[in-house]
């Protein structure tokens, strides 16, 4: 019981601390949403509008930070994340509902694919150390050292264009209405290809490397030698003995990277004009949209915490040693 309580307390504490930080950080930024809005229009919006905007955004009331903080918690418990300033008066929850699926679909699937591909290649590279696969490592390292946005922009310039198969921006063809029909899904997939490929290229080598190193370490374990001694087919030794054990440390890494999906997509979405949550955050930062920032952070925080929990559980399931005896 104590263990469970400790775990729960730990997660609760982390969530509390992260949410609190998420509350305060945006408020420490100088400037406020109104001046940001005025400045965004660089003269096209008259300075006369300042006052009306303060009233509109409800910033004219001088609530103390502390009471705002309490209100914030009150709102969170009601599932209310406030109204966004950038998209005033759209509720933050609606903005998130609109953008989150895109992020999860694109980055989630690519992270998963990257993990699968990278891990499989890493298994092979580690297993056949010294073969041509090993020669591939510096290449993938190079690819993963390229700044993501740079690769993406290059890809857009070289591959996307009017007559190209790859669209250069957006999540789907303009004019389509999101729905579960073939045209839309096809278009969405087509639009996700280029970003997905670039994410894959720049992230896969990390998995290859860590898996390869684990494989090399595991390959010198006694039980692998024993598996060879048993005359098992090579594939069986590689997959069921070596890879199965080498995978364990990577699992928590994978779970954590799932948590970072939401936070790490900012550049992807900027470069490929992808309608996801990372871009929301970018916009929110630019326009001092605290409610939206907090909302995005809340999503990120929760996803990382959940990913941690998933990692805990996955480890428990995958490694019999952590399971209770009997």
């Amino acid at each position: 019981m104590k263990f469970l309580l400790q775990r729960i307390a730990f997660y609760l504490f982390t969530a509390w601390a992260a949410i609190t930080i998420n509350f305060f950080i945006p408020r420490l930024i100088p400037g406020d949403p109104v001046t940001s809005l005025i400045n965004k229009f660089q003269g096209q919006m008259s300075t006369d509008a300042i006052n009306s905007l303060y009233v509109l955004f409800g910033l004219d009331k001088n609530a103390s930070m502390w009471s705002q903080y309490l209100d914030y918690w009150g709102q969170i418990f009601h599932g209310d994340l406030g109204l966004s300033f950038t998209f005033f008066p759209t509720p933050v929850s609606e903005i998130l509902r609109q953008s989150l699926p895109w992020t999860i679909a694109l980055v989630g699937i690519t992270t998963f694919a990257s993990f699968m591909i990278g891990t499989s290649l890493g298994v092979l590279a580690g297993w056949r150390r010294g073969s041509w696969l090993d020669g591939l490592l510096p290449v993938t390292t190079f690819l993963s050292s390229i700044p993501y946005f740079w690769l993406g922009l290059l890809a857009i310039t070289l591959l996307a264009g009017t007559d190209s198969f790859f669209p250069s921006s957006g999540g789907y063809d303009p004019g389509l209405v999101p729905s579960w029909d073939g045209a839309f899904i096809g278009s969405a997939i087509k639009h996700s290809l280029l970003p997905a490929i670039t994410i894959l290229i720049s992230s896969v080598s990390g998995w290859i490397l860590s898996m390869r190193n684990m494989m090399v370490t595991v390959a010198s374990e006694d039980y692998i030698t024993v598996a060879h001694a048993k005359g098992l087919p090579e594939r069986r030794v590689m997959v069921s003995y070596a890879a199965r054990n080498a995978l364990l440390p990577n699992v928590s890494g994978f779970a954590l990277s799932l948590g970072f999906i939401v936070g790490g997509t900012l550049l992807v979405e900027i470069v490929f004009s992808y309608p996801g949550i990372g871009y929301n955050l970018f916009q929110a930062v630019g326009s001092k949209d605290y409610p939206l920032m907090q909302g995005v952070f809340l999503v990120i925080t929760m996803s990382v915490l959940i990913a941690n929990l998933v990692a805990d559980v996955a480890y428990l399931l995958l490694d019999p040693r952590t399971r209770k005896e009997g």
Partner: protein
Amino acid sequence: MTAQVPATTITAVTPEGPVGAAAPAKRRRLRFVANPKAATGLFILGFFCLIAIIGPWIAPFDPSARSSDLIQAPSGKHWFGTTHLGQDIFSQVLVGTRGVMFVGLLAGIIATALSVLIGVSSGFLGGAADEGLSALSNVFLVIPALPLIIIVASTIPSAGDLMVALVIGLTSWAWGARVLRAQTLSLRRRDYVEAARATGESTWRIITVEILPNLTAIIASGFVGTVIFAVMSEITLAFIGISTISEWNWGTILFWAQSQQALAQGAWWWFVPAGLAIAILGTALSLINFGIDEFVSPRLRSSGHTRVRTKDGHTVRMRVGFTPVLQQNGKNDPVTPVVRKSTDEAKGAA
């Protein structure tokens, strides 16, 4: 690099080696450089460090100086071409190296120092201190680094390279701390730590002298990782126009290239050199990382030779489970290589 001796932290103890066969520490240090990957990485890194120091002096032009050569392709005069203001991109890259290296290394040092401080003390001290410190690092882990950096960087008025380095360093230590804590936890129970305690060493000395040297590999690779992350973050900040650096760095060049839509204009020379420089620097750091791994882990170290040539001229790969036979003796023996059983499965796997 302070690594002198392979820290057998990850691997099991090596079997008793033949006395005298083991090289003294000095030779082992050389072996690190002899590793072709590490040597390449070190060489490139050294080159960039050199440029960071002398770049501003050897730059042919003032990187900000305008000229009448607007958007010129690379030429003898402007090796990397010019910008929309006629500025020399080659000079910008040279001058920009300093900021990148400074921020990368400083942020790496700060983050590494913090992760060691927090990770090791939390792993070693245990109890309430551990709970507190690991909660702290978990909170930092939960907060997404790049957005946090963007926010913090935009909070600080007119921050220079130093500030950016501080911000990146202060926000990116958590992962390292977590890894170090886990490793420290396992080291803390090692016999030699207990033995040091039983000898009467003070806690402080046990941490710094007994445990830390065994974490060298992790610390070093963490450092390399943070430097890469810091460089990327700095460049990203400059690229999306958040950071406040007035100095040139590669990100600033990319920012200008992007805001002037260099690629759409066909001015690839504006975009390519800085990006490649980043990629090469990152690769160099990763190569060093490989080197460190192979240097400290005896298991990876034997990777030098992976192919052997048998006496009758075949090349065989050295691998676990199938020891190569260099020479088959007993040619005189009337031995017929008949296999009693050869199952399909075994054949299939060959």
